[in-house]
């Protein structure tokens, strides 16, 4: 009954393209058998701006992964991010009509059909309908079937994106003679890898700050309440530095890596560091306060915008697991402190240790690993329609051997 199947996750980010191939073992476990990664080109703020360049590096990445695994794949799970991603809450409620006053499966189906019925404007494609916890007479319920009650409320966070931009990414994969099995919001994929089931059950806010975008997902009671994408990332920090301190982007980038801090540490405005540190013409001293101030302003703004976007759903007392940071920009010094300052709850850097071991634990593989997780889940849903055991997540073990 369990035949070996290979699934692939491709994460096209603004800084890197990552492809992971996983072999499904016994239907519910996954061994990573191929890894490919290359620097992105033709991407800006999470979106494809140069099709050919982006295509070339995705293809190179896929080829590496396939060669390493020694298998040919036919489909991939693809991450999606960018400023075109939007979301809204769709809600519906039904009265429990059965004679004994207990919720039946039909009630749930009726309510979810109602909630998901909202039509999207032209050129928009739904990416996910994320179901929030059920509410039975106002109480949050994990699974209401069989319970007594009068009114069942169901709510979805619907994520949709620009059809053309989603197609762009699909065309790249199709150009390699592969099809796209499904699309997963990048922030959700990352969340699957960096936060385990317990953390989500206690409430967690996952923020993945990459080079071009910041993807966030808020989990309460184990379910995703809201997820979205802000097309602001590490590139903006470099750009701010380049404008504020009048230098080329490359120099700003290097300055950010060398002296960057998301919290101002040097209060003395006269303390300076050298721009290029090569004593050549054009080198000049830069106040380290300015570097840190510019970065602090930008990074805390990113967090503030995320906080505002969450609106009333941001309830610090319900987010016991705190803020979990991921993505390339999370390597910035003091970013945890900065997040704590803005959100007022504990923050920490996430890794994939709940899912993977060795090299794959690093945050840069989070999204691709999460894609494999979703892939596995989707496949299982297909083979056993009723099988919705979320426990898969905990048992998912990935092994990577070079």
């Amino acid at each position: 009954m369990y035949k070996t199947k290979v699934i692939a996750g491709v994460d096209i980010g603004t800084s890197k393209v990552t492809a992971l191939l996983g072999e499904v073992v016994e239907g519910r476990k996954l061994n990573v058998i191929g890894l490919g990664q290359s620097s992105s080109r033709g991407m800006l703020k999470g979106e494809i701006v140069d099709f050919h360049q982006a295509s070339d590096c995705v293809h190179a990445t896929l080829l590496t992964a396939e060669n390493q695994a020694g298998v040919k794949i036919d489909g991939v799970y693809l991450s999606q991010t960018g400023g075109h991603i939007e979301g809204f809450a769709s809600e519906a409620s039904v009265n429990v009509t059965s004679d004994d006053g207990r919720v039946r499966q039909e009630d749930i189906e009726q309510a979810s059909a109602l909630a998901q019925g909202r039509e999207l404007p032209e050129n928009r494609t739904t990416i996910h309908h994320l179901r929030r916890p059920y509410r039975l007479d106002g109480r949050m319920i994990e699974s209401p079937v069989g319970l007594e009650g009068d009114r069942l409320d169901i709510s979805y966070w619907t994520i949709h994106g620009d059809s053309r931009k989603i197609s762009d990414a699909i065309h790249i994969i199709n150009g390699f003679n592969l099809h796209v099995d499904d699309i997963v919001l990048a922030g959700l994929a990352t969340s699957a890898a960096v936060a385990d089931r317990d953390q989500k059950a206690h409430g967690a806010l996952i923020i993945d700050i990459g080079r071009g975008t910041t993807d966030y997902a808020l989990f309460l009671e184990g379910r995703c309440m809201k997820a979205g994408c802000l097309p602001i990332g590490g590139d903006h920090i470099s750009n701010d530095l380049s404008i504020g301190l009048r230098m080329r982007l490359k120099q700003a980038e290097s300055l950010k890596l060398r002296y960057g801090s998301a919290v101002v540490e040097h209060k003395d405005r006269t303390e300076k560091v050298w721009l290029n540190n090569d004593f050549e013409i054009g080198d000049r001293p830069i106040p380290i306060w300015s570097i840190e101030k510019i970065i602090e302003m930008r990074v805390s703004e990113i967090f503030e915008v995320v906080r505002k976007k969450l609106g009333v759903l941001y309830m610090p007392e319900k987010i016991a697991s705190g803020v979990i940071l991921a993505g390339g920009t999370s390597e910035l010094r003091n970013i945890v402190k900065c997040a704590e300052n803005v959100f007022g709850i504990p923050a920490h850097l996430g890794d994939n240790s709940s899912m993977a071991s060795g090299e794959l634990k690093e945050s840069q593989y989070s999204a691709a690993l999460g894609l494999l997780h979703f892939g596995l889940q989707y496949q299982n849903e297909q083979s056993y329609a009723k099988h919705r055991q979320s426990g898969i997540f905990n048992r998912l073990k990935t092994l990577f051997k070079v």
Partner: protein
Amino acid sequence: MEAQEFDEEESRSAIRIKVVGVGGAGSNIVDRLALSGSEGVELVAVNTDQQALAGSPVIHKLCIGKSITGGLGTGGDAEAGCEAAMQDLEAIDEVVAGVDLLFLTAGLGGGTGTGAAPVIAERAMRQGAVVFAFVALPFSIERSARANTAQEGLRQLRDTCNAVVPLPNDLLIQESDADASLLDAFSKADAWIEKAIKSIWLMLNKTGLINLDFAQLRQTFSKKAGKTLFGIGRGEGENAAAAAVADLKLCPLLHTPEFSKLADQLLVNIIGGPGIGIADTRMIMETMAEEFGAESDLVMGAVIDETLGDSVEICVLGTSEVSSIAVSRVVKKRPLVAKPKPEESGDVSEATGVPKARPVTHQRPKKVEQHEFAFSDDEPKGEFENSIAVMFEGQDLDSPTYLRRGVKIVL
């Protein structure tokens, strides 16, 4: 040192320069100029608010649209500002009549400045004046409606002026001290405009190492303004020239990504004390040519101002077309005045005397995007200049946070 003999049509002494301040913010700048004493420049304050005009030290005042506003101002309505100007076209024509070079100053986002300035510019252009507009843009904290009004006003001005220099208040605050008051910040904005006007005025009126005449200026800015680049740098002491170049490079108004610094037409003016040497001038000009694109139509001037002592000021003003605008235009080829050879130093003014090539009309080759001069409308966005803006609560998140929040960065 006399360049007049090569002048085709203009006599320098006859150049009439006027500075017209429109609206409250515009008038303030003119007031400042009046107080600091600018000989040879006529100042005019135009407003719809009679009371504000009454308090102005400027001699020549014009209150427009009395029948519409009752002399009480427009209340921030740009349409009313425009109508007010239309009502008093004759009076405006009178103000701009016979003016060769008109500097228009206004604050965009309000009623009079936004509405009336384009009308005045248009009347002046029609009468043959070269019109340079210096306009202040609202702070990003004042966003939404005011910003939209300002953008609309800017667009109209670009259609009616030879050059438009937008001065975003957010950028100007970078020039003041961290704990400066809003008033100080505004007076900084005024000072920028004052410097620019003085620089150009000096260029036209003082005897130069390298003379620039009005005809050349007119030629350089003969087209309607696309986007305008403007910057000032100042240096003092032994290496004044080098310091001025360094200062200019740090000028916040110029700080756009490398590719967008290239201008189609560029005017560089150097004003130095008696100590400025030909080697300095040459160094500055070569740097400028390199910095702003040697392909551009380059006009350079260098003048001596005895009062400057050992300091040097550089002022650059350039325009380039917005890529979407017209294709056919007059392009003038001119031997570079930029590189006076040291051996010519005995009589440098000859440089200006090189017979000018006649203008030729030809189809302008389609420009590569890289050369498009994309100085931002309000705030610089660097490498995100051409990407879709990320708007949140009325702010463009692509532009630096510190700029939008008015945090002064120490350099």
